[in-house]
């Protein structure tokens, strides 16, 4: 087993990996940029090393600096988390070259899956269903017209190197095709340095369902069930669950077997996720699924799979990378209960979801039965503007989907973040929504919900209570010894109260 693992990431996932290391008795080394010196992952690790300026390119994305730290501190493995360098085949290659184990698949597997067209070619060979279209970059408008005519409009143009909706265009008719293709190609060239664009049939508002796989280095590959990830905004997942309300045992087995075939086609090892688009025929309710892409890393939403399988994916990633065999077979894996994850972002859900960095003035966190919180922040932490806005993941587990929903609904009011805005209020709305509760979700669901006018949740009793409370706070502020001799009374006077008084607010 490894002696020391360098965690090449930050935020909640770095904390998650550090915890897994500690549980395995492995030392953990954190890296941090200038603005992250006091970040939670630095406070949690056994060792911590500076890797430079705030801009990710100069720190968390800087292969040379990170490898240099790994060598200096004597790490024998690197866990990349998700994002940053986690899907960078060059980094995986560089680790191998430095004799440091990269905890993830080989560079060769990553490359096979890194280009969407190359992945489609692999899948074609392996007989895996994917959305009808081309498996090579489009060579001309003429070729695009021919393919589109064959598969029928609407079609989707996609960048081979794509991600995050860039270089992507929905084309409704032949007239739009040429300008859409040119725009997609130039956007892809700008965003990825690669203008390759292919075409596939557009599936409108499909479900996005993905299958977790695990493969050891001895040829054993298993699937751990699916995750429903259809609740998205701007192609970014917001809420995920396992199992999917749509998938039954038969479909799970079928998708799982396809996912294992995908992994084997890529000689895949370690944890990976095969993403599918799923559409359900509105008439006969028949469900079809198509290979979309493979994510060659741990996913943000891995906890929902952990809760329903009882397994620890990061623990298993490390053990697989250390050469261990999978400690179970497909038959041993059992899905029990239901888990739902809320991604808590620092963003202002009431104001265009603008990012909301800044200092967390106060933090109260939920707990109790069925509640797991994977957080990367603490009270007093200054959330920097330089990285993605994920603060924490709140995961609810229950005996069934309904209990998972009610536990999250119970936990949300226990969660309180002061000083910056979060999207906590959005989850209350989703959890209370009838379509969500009956599992009627697809990738268009969240936009439709947000367009609908939010019901006035502000009941009169709460408003008059808020009025009384606001006045009570004022009375207590003006007391030098607030609620003296009362149990649980707070400390004498906080600094902002003094400030407030000076400013005439009281």
């Amino acid at each position, binding site marked *: 087993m490894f002696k020391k693992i360098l965690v090449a990431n930050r935020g909640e996932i770095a904390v998650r990996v550090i915890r897994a290391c500690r549980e395995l008795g492995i030392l953990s080394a954190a890296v941090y940029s200038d603005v992250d010196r006091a970040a939670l992952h630095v406070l949690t690790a056994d060792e911590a090393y500076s890797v430079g300026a705030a801009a990710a390119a100069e720190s968390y994305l800087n292969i040379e600096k990170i490898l240099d730290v790994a060598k200096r501190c004597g790490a024998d493995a690197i866990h990349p988390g998700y994002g940053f360098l986690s899907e960078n085949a060059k980094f995986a290659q560089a680790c191998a070259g430095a004799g440091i184990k990269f905890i993830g698949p080989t560079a060769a597997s990553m490359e096979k899956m890194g280009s969407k067209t190359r992945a489609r070619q692999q899948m074609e060979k392996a007989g895996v269903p994917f959305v009808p279209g081309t498996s090579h970059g489009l060579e001309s408008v003429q070729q695009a017209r021919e393919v589109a005519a064959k598969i029928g409009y609407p079609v989707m143009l996609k960048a081979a190197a794509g991600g995050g909706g860039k270089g992507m265009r929905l084309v409704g008719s032949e007239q739009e095709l040429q300008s859409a293709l040119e725009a997609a190609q130039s956007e892809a060239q700008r965003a990825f340095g690669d203008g390759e664009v292919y075409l596939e049939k557009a599936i409108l508002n499909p479900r996005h369902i993905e299958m977790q796989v695990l493969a050891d280095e001895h040829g054993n590959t298993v699937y751990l069930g699916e995750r429903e990830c259809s609740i998205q905004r701007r192609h970014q997942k917001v809420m995920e669950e396992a199992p999917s309300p749509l998938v039954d045992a038969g479909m799970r087995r079928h998708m799982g077997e396809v996912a294992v075939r995908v992994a084997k086609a890529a000689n895949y090892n370690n944890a990976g996720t095969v993403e599918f688009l799923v559409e359900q025929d509105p008439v006969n309710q028949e469900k079809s699924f198509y290979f979309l892409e493979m994510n060659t890393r741990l996913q943000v939403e891995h906890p929902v799979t952990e809760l329903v399988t009882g397994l620890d994916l990061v623990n298993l990633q490390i053990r697989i990378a250390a050469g261990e065999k999978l400690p179970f077979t497909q038959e041993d894996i059992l899905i029990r209960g239901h888990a739902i994850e809320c991604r808590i972002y620092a963003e202002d859900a009431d104001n265009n979801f603008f990012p909301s960095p800044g200092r967390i003035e106060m933090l109260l966190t939920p707990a109790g039965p069925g509640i797991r919180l994977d957080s990367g922040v603490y009270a007093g932490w200054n959330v920097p*503007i330089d990285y993605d806005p994920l603060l924490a993941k709140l995961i609810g587990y229950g005996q069934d989907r309904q209990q998972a929903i009610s536990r999250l609904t119970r936990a949300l*009011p226990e969660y309180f973040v002061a*000083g910056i805005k979060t999207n906590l209020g959005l989850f209350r709305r989703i959890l209370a929504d009838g379509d969500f509760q009956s599992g009627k979700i697809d990738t268009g669901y969240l936009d439709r919900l947000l367009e609908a006018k939010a019901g006035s949740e502000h009941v009169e009793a709460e408003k008059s*209570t*808020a009025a009384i409370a606001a*006045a009570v706070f004022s009375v207590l502020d003006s007391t030098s010894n607030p609620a003296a001799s009362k149990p649980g009374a707070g400390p004498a006077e906080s600094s902002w109260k003094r400030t407030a008084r000076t400013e005439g607010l009281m």
Partner: protein
Amino acid sequence: MIYDVTIDGSSYRLDLNLDRATGRWRCLVGGREVEIDAVLAQPEVLSILIEGKAWQIRRERLASGLRIWVGDHSYGAEVSDPRSLRNRKVRGDAGKGPRHLVAPMPGKVVRFLVGENSPVEAGQGVVVVEAMKMQNEIKSPKKGTVLKLSVSEGAAVIAGDVLAIVE
């Protein structure tokens, strides 16, 4: 002691007194007596019982003012004591006159979507600010003309910086 409190636009007049010896409160809301009991559990966390109902209330102080949290709902609050000499802010009537587009968060100005002296529709994007790996369009609050672009592309801004003026 009289307090005038505004909660999300609704006004309440409270007469609130704490007998510090006994810890008992006396509370009138709009002249009607309401039985309450309140203690501070943590510096910004209040436990308040109002006629049997138990509420855990949290107060958040933002640059933009007070927010009172009742469970996971929050309300903008203004508290004023009528004896106070301080005048309440008079809110500008929205929609008329030149309006400032301000950065809602710190970030980097990526690009302007319209030029100076161009006409804009209400809700049309004027400038893109990048923060936390996201590109955020700051939109015009009204139909009119962009009078001025106040910062240059590539500039780092902090929350509240004026980005453009729309007339």
